[in-house]
């Protein structure tokens, strides 16, 4: 009785659709004809799809490594100053607003005007103060636009990493750090030899969270470029297959690939949960 309504929601909205989507991924456009692995073949051979997969890989590497390491560095640095709470609140702030609002903020930051006209975007205005440097069309130039979008993602999520890593940092017993300092260890050594090894688990948890976030990234790309000019990622590709081309088979295949990519995390979570329960 207590579980009833929860069971209803979990079954109808999560378990049934997962099974159904897996099934649909083997069917054709109108979900009638069986096409075997045809949709998967498409996903791994079509040029647009491969572009999206490649971009997701770029996101995965840059976004995950930078958010986690930057979050850690900020957590360690702010730990040393008295205005820690205020500084952390500022960096955490973007987490509270929507990705859509964050995208508007950065659309204005990235705004581009040809050289010679006053720049209205802060980034190009800063660039134009250096003589001889041309303004950059951040969202249009295919050499930089993916990095610009990833930058927005980093701006949003670094605060999240910082908060969790900072809590982990506070969990390191002060005596250990004090003892190391008395023994003459430099702050640099303390970071690499004590803080980093002791926070290993927290770092892994944060990094896996970022991996999940990055695989599903959608809003930023949808709002800022709609995946045009070589910025598409798989979640946007799926949306397009669904609503622009009405090809539910391909859209489902993309979703299944997303799920397969996340399954290691699911297994990892279940194992960790079991281990935690066993301790109690």
């Amino acid at each position, binding site marked *: 009785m*207590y579980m009833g309504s929860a069971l209803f929601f979990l079954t109808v909205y999560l378990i049934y659709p997962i099974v159904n989507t897996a099934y649909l991924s083997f069917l054709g456009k109108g979900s009638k004809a069986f096409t075997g692995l045809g949709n998967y073949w498409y996903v791994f051979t079509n040029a647009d799809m491969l572009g999206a997969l490649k971009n997701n890989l770029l996101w995965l590497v840059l976004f995950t490594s930078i958010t986690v390491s930057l979050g850690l560095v900020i957590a360690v640095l702010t730990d040393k100053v008295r205005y820690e709470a205020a500084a952390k609140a500022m960096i955490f702030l973007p987490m509270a607003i*929507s990705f859509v609002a964050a995208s508007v903020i950065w659309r204005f930051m990235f705004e581009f005007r040809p050289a010679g006209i006053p720049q*209205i975007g802060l980034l190009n205005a800063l660039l134009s103060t250096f003589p001889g440097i041309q303004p950059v069309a951040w969202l249009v130039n295919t050499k930089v636009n993916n990095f610009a979008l990833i930058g927005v993602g980093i701006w949003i999520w670094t605060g999240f990493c910082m908060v969790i890593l900072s809590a982990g940092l506070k969990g390191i017993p002060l005596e250990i750090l004090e003892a190391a300092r008395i023994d003459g260890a430099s702050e640099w050594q303390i970071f690499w030899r004590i803080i980093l090894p002791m926070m290993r688990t927290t770092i892994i948890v944060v990094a896996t969270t970022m991996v999940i976030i990055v695989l599903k990234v959608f809003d930023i790309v949808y709002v800022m470029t709609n995946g045009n000019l070589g910025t598409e990622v798989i979640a946007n590709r799926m949306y397009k297959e669904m609503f622009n081309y009405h090809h539910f088979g391909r859209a489902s295949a993309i979703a299944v690939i997303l799920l397969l990519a996340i399954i290691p995390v699911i297994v990892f979570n279940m194992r960790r949960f079991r281990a935690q329960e066993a301790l109690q």
Partner: protein
Amino acid sequence: MTGKGVRWLSRSLLHMVIILVCLMWTLPSFGLLANSFRSRRDIVTTGWWTGFKTPFAFTIENYVEVLTGQTRYGKTKAGDNRRSILKDIITGQGMGRAFLNSLIISIPSTLIPILVASFAAYALAWMRFPGRDLLLIIVVALLVVPLQMTLIPILRLYNRFQLAGTFLGVWLAHTAYGLPYAIYLLRNFFKALPRGLFESASLDGASQFVVFYRIVVPLSIPSIASLAIFQFLWVWNDLLVALIYLGGTRDVAPLTMHISGMMSSLGENWHLLPAGAFISMVLPLIIFATLQPYFVRGILAGSAKG
């Protein structure tokens, strides 16, 4: 250099780095806020920082226009004007309607999953029944399943039962998507309550429901508050779920959809974007400013623990 000098130098370097990072994280939002109070012409011709040169020419006209969808109000009596502005905010084509929609979507989408999850979490934490451990592990597995796996089948069901484009459809979807996390979080909190509490209560003859309602829930208010803030912000800021299940229906579109529509309508609404984005940020910012400890707690409990 003396030891003291080195120390002083590294301290000032530390402060400089932190302040620089803080600037990088706040200046973009501040620029948007400044821009939202500049006139249409200023926004498209000069950067926001030029607005701080005298003479100041800040205005609220963008806010009026974006909320009501109307540009000009006739030069009638001020009272009439105010009334028509209010009317347009609520019923007009502007963002006032979208703000209301966001509220209509977010409040039930926060309350329903918490209600459903607290019952389930109580059962999973303190009741014995067959399949309990299996259910628990399924909830843990569902925590990170990508939403994308569910979109197509649910949309088809919605089309069949005419739930697409309705608030009810979005409420139910958000409830389901929020449940695994909500159950998991609350179950961990409930489980952490001392066992003796339950034993003495059941010795006194209290029924399960009384224990749940009179003991577990009141003791867990801080945790429930964390969860509520988390879920509310998640729904308020959501774009994907609204986009899929509400489709193109404008009169039910929340703020996020409204703004992303403005972004893609090339140029003509450019001057309204800063004000629009800020209106969508007001509520999250207030919540963040007043309830930040709860928000942080919810995040920590979810990821650092599990």
